[in-house]
């Protein structure tokens, strides 16, 4: 059975007399125990989608199911899901213990069991000994863990996380990503994670739904999303990507004096190539590869790799990453004429 099912869910708002669709029909199924991410830029509808799962927003149309049960019109306090809010939304007048125990008290769980479960949960999030602290006396990372404990202690069917790491600095965020993944494995609860940070989504998720303008553009595992973006939007949003477009004939797309191999394609096509898949060379390559000539417009040293911006004859610019695996010398300098080449399987033909 699916932990969460959304069936053609639509959310409309009235704004200045006009109907605005924040979510335009989202259908997805989230398996039990899955780490599922809703990824997209701000305003793409990901938070609204999550709030409909939590029960804070009622869908204008469509059905929300939790464990096969229709909960579309069930209020949040009667849903077996819990949420970790973006700014944690801890109760400022309660200490850590009372914050974490809140849900259990509301459900009328027996005192002894509350004591045991809260103790256990504080241990999991490494906050033992800080029960009497107030939220404002704690660091962002600690507050984050209180928020997590407050939700998880109820053993919900699914945990919803709304950009929970957004307020933390980079180092702490990376540490918490690993921490979150560990906790999820430990408790085995379905996690639905809303983020605009592609790295976060790629690092933690089993599956990702990339959202744009109220619709799911692609729903797949991290590797697939990265390697085979389904749409131009996904290609552009996830990582850096080069887009080459033109008219192909007999499986070859001519680009600026070169060729891109697109087996089986004819007519107008768009192709994406990841910058790290491209080899930069001064000589024209041989063999069954895509090869395009160009002029180096910029070279940027980025530590673990060099980034080249190469201008093609047709005016397009291609980004190329070159690993600094052996030495940090660059193959070409600004103004040099170069050849870019890549294996045919790294050209990915996408829909518009």
């Amino acid at each position: 059975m699916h932990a969460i099912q959304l069936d053609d869910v639509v959310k409309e708002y009235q704004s200045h007399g006009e109907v605005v669709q924040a979510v335009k029909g989202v259908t997805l199924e989230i398996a039990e125990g899955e780490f599922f991410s809703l990824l997209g830029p701000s305003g793409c509808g990901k938070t609204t989608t999550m709030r409909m799962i939590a029960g804070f927003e009622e869908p204008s149309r469509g059905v929300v199911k939790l464990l096969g049960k229709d909960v579309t019109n069930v209020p949040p306090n009667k849903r077996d899901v819990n949420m970790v809010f973006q700014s944690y939304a801890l109760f400022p007048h309660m200490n850590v213990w009372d914050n974490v125990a809140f849900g259990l008290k509301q459900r009328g769980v027996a005192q002894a069991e509350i004591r045991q479960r809260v103790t256990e949960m504080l241990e999991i999030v490494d906050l033992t000994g800080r029960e009497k602290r107030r939220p404002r006396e704690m660091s962002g990372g600690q507050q984050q863990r209180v928020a997590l404990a407050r939700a998880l202690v109820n053993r919900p069917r699914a945990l919803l996380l709304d950009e929970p790491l957004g307020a933390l600095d980079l180092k702490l965020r990376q540490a918490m990503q690993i921490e979150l993944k560990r906790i999820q494995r430990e408790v085995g609860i379905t996690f639905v994670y809303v983020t605009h940070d592609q790295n976060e989504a790629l690092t933690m998720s089993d599956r990702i739904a990339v959202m744009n303008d109220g619709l799911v553009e692609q729903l797949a595992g991290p590797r697939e999303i990265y390697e085979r973006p389904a749409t131009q939007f996904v290609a552009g949003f996830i990582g850096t990507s080069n887009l080459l477009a033109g008219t192909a004939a007999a499986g070859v797309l001519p680009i600026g004096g070169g060729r891109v191999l697109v087996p089986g394609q004819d007519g107008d096509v768009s192709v994406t190539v990841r910058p790290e898949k491209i080899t930069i060379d001064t000589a024209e390559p041989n063999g069954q590869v895509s090869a395009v000539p160009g002029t180096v417009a910029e070279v940027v040293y980025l530590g673990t790799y060099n980034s080249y911006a190469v201008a093609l004859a047709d005016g397009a610019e291609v980004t190329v990453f070159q690993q600094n695996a052996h030495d940090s010398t660059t193959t070409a300098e600004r103004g040099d004429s170069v050849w870019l080449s890549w294996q045919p399987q790294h050209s990915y033909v996408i829909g518009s």
Partner: protein
Amino acid sequence: MKGRLTPYLLALPSWLWLGIFLVVPLAAMASVSTTTGNNIDGFVQTFAFSNYTDALSRYSTQLARSFAYGAMATVAMLVIGYPVAYFIAFKGGARKSTYLFLLLLPFFVSFVLRTISWGFLLADDGILLGTLKGWGLLPAGFHVLATTFSVVAGLTYNWLPFMILPIYVALERVDPRVIEAAQDLYATRLAAFRRVVLPLSLPGVFAGVLMTFVPATADPVNAQILGGTSNTMIGNVIQTEYLTNLAYPSASALSFTLMAVLLVGIFIYAKALGTENVLEAAANR
């Protein structure tokens, strides 16, 4: 050196202001309160502390009544004001500032004038009661003016904004997501209010009660205009003693007594229900 003195220098005008217009008159009044004599022969300092006991025994009824009226009005303001503050803070939306403006609008008309208008409204044959009686909706003998009700109602009306504003400020600061978090953690709307919104608004309630109870207790205007002879408050007594009877020592002694009782009351109230304590109690309920 200059840098360290700057804050004190900046505070100097307010210290001077308070010194000249508060401390000096208070000291003068304290001194007058223990004098004996009369208006014609002059008052002589005799350290007559009996002025206090005399004034108290003579006017204990009015003093007690003042506190009772003040307390009743404060409770009424809380009951009426809290929902108003809640409505403006959470349901006000884009009209918040309009509502706040409407709340303060009565202040554009003088306090005394507004109270006199209430007098007209509540008069036995006035606009309101007269009309209702004319329609036969009220018995002819029904009257409101010069009762406890009319005085407390007047006090409630006049100080209500001072109850609403601090509560509004406290509610306004409550993050709506905290309320959502409570609902997400299985709290019904009522439970979310009781366990989260109400405790978080208590500092505002605390401030509101202070800001209304003290002036309502000491107020002479409402009792004078809306009350009768049996509704006299301590403020009226002090006013009469000062301005009509010219009994300065007795009036000063009463003023100080009122002030002392209010200060002690506030101190106990703050000690017992200080912000931290209130929050702690609410959280551990």
